C-alpha cells in the first residue's frame, strides 16, 4: 500500500495518541514520536506502529505521533484510521480470530 496523501487520527486527550502520516517515497518507515511515557514505553509504541504498517504492506511513510499514554490497541486503531483516511479506503479486512 502506498501513502501519497496525508492522514491524521486521534486526539491529544489522556490515554489517546494523535497520529499523522504522510508520503515518504523511497525513504522507508520514519517515526517521529513524542510521548508522556517515552522513557518507559517509547520502544513499545514504535514497535506497534512498525508492526501495524508491516501488516498493511506499507514500506515508505513518515509517521508523526504524539502519545498521551495510549494502550497498544488504541495506537493500532488510530494508525489504521489515519491510513484509511490517507488512502480513502473505507475499511480494512477485519482480522478474524
Amino acid at each position, binding site marked *: 500500500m502506498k501513502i501519497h496523501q496525508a492522514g491524521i*487520527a*486521534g486526539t491529544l*486527550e*489522556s*490515554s*489517546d495518541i494523535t497520529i499523522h502520516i504522510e508520503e515518504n517515497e523511497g525513504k522507508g518507515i520514519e517515526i517521529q514520536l513524542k510521548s508522556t511515557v517515552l522513557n518507559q514505553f517509547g520502544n513499545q509504541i514504535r514497535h506497534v506502529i512498525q508492526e501495524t504498517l508491516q501488516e498493511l504492506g506499507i514500506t515508505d511513510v513518515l509517521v508523526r505521533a504524539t502519545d498521551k499514554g*495510549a*494502550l*497498544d*490497541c*488504541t495506537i*493500532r*486503531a*488510530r494508525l*489504521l*484510521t489515519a491510513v*484509511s*483516511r490517507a488512502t480513502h479506503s*473505507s*475499511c480494512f479486512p*477485519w*482480522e*478474524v*480470530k
Partner: protein
Amino acid sequence: MLYVPGNHPGMIRDAHIYGSDAIMFDLEDSVSIKEKDAARQLVYHSLKTIDYGCTEVVVRVNGLNTPYGGADFEAMVRAKPDAIRLPKTETPEDVKEADALISRIEEQIGMVQGTIKLMAAVESALGVINAYGIATASKRLIGIAIGAEDFVTDLKTSRSAEGIELLTARSQILFAARAAGIDALDTVFSDVNDEEGFAREVRLIKQMGFDGKSIVNPRQIEIVHKLFAPSEEEVRKSVRIIEAIGEAEEKGSGVISLDGRMIDKPIVERARRVLELNDAVKNSYILAR
C-alpha cells in the same frame, strides 16, 4: 448499563472498573459524523484486547439506514461483544434486517449462529406502537429499551421531572418485553448533578417493572444498585419461601403456607427474582472493589 462514548480511549479502557452490570460502547449519537471511522476502529481493537471480565458488553451501532451501520455491523460482530444494540428501531423488519446481517457475518467467519445477541432501542411513536412486534422479531433479541431524548422530540414535547410524557411509552415497552419474555431497560437521566431527581426516576421505573436503567455517569451506578437491591427483610423472607417450597415439593405437597399465608406460584416467582437481584447486586459490588 453504563453508556461509554466510542471515541474516548480512556473511558473505554476504564469502563468496567466502576461496577455497572453492563457497559455500552456507543458508535452512534455520541460520535460526530467525521469520527465514525475512528470510533469503529477504536471500539473494535479495544474489544479484541481488553478483558471486561463479568461485565456484559454491548455496542450501540449506527442504524442500517445510515452510511455507517453496515460497516459497524461488519466490525462489531467480529469484535464479539455480548450484544449489539440497534438504535431507533421502528418496525420488526428493522430487527429482522439486523438479524439477517449478523447471521450472514457469523456464517462468513465461522462463528456459532446466534452468538451475538441483539437489543432494540425504541425512540419514536411508531416504534412504541410496534413494540411487541419488535420484541418478538428475532431469537437474538434479549432486551428492548426506550430512548427518551429522541422519543420526546418525536412526540413534540420535552422531558419533565415527573416523566408523564414517557408513561405510555414505558408501559408499552414493558408490556412488550414481558409478553416476549425479554428484558426491559429504561432510558438515561442526563442531569448527573440531580441525584434526587435521578433516584426518583429509578424508583418509578423499578416499581413499573423495568429490569434496569441506562446511565451516563459512573456516579449513578450506586444509586441504581441501592434502589434495585432488595432489603434484608425481603431477602430473608424470600429465602424462607424458597426453602418452604423445596420442603413441600419433597413431601409431594402442592400448596403450602408460611406464617399463616398461602404460598402460591406468583409468590415463589417473586421470591426467586428477589434472590436473583440480590445476587446480581452483590456481584456488582464485589467487581467494583
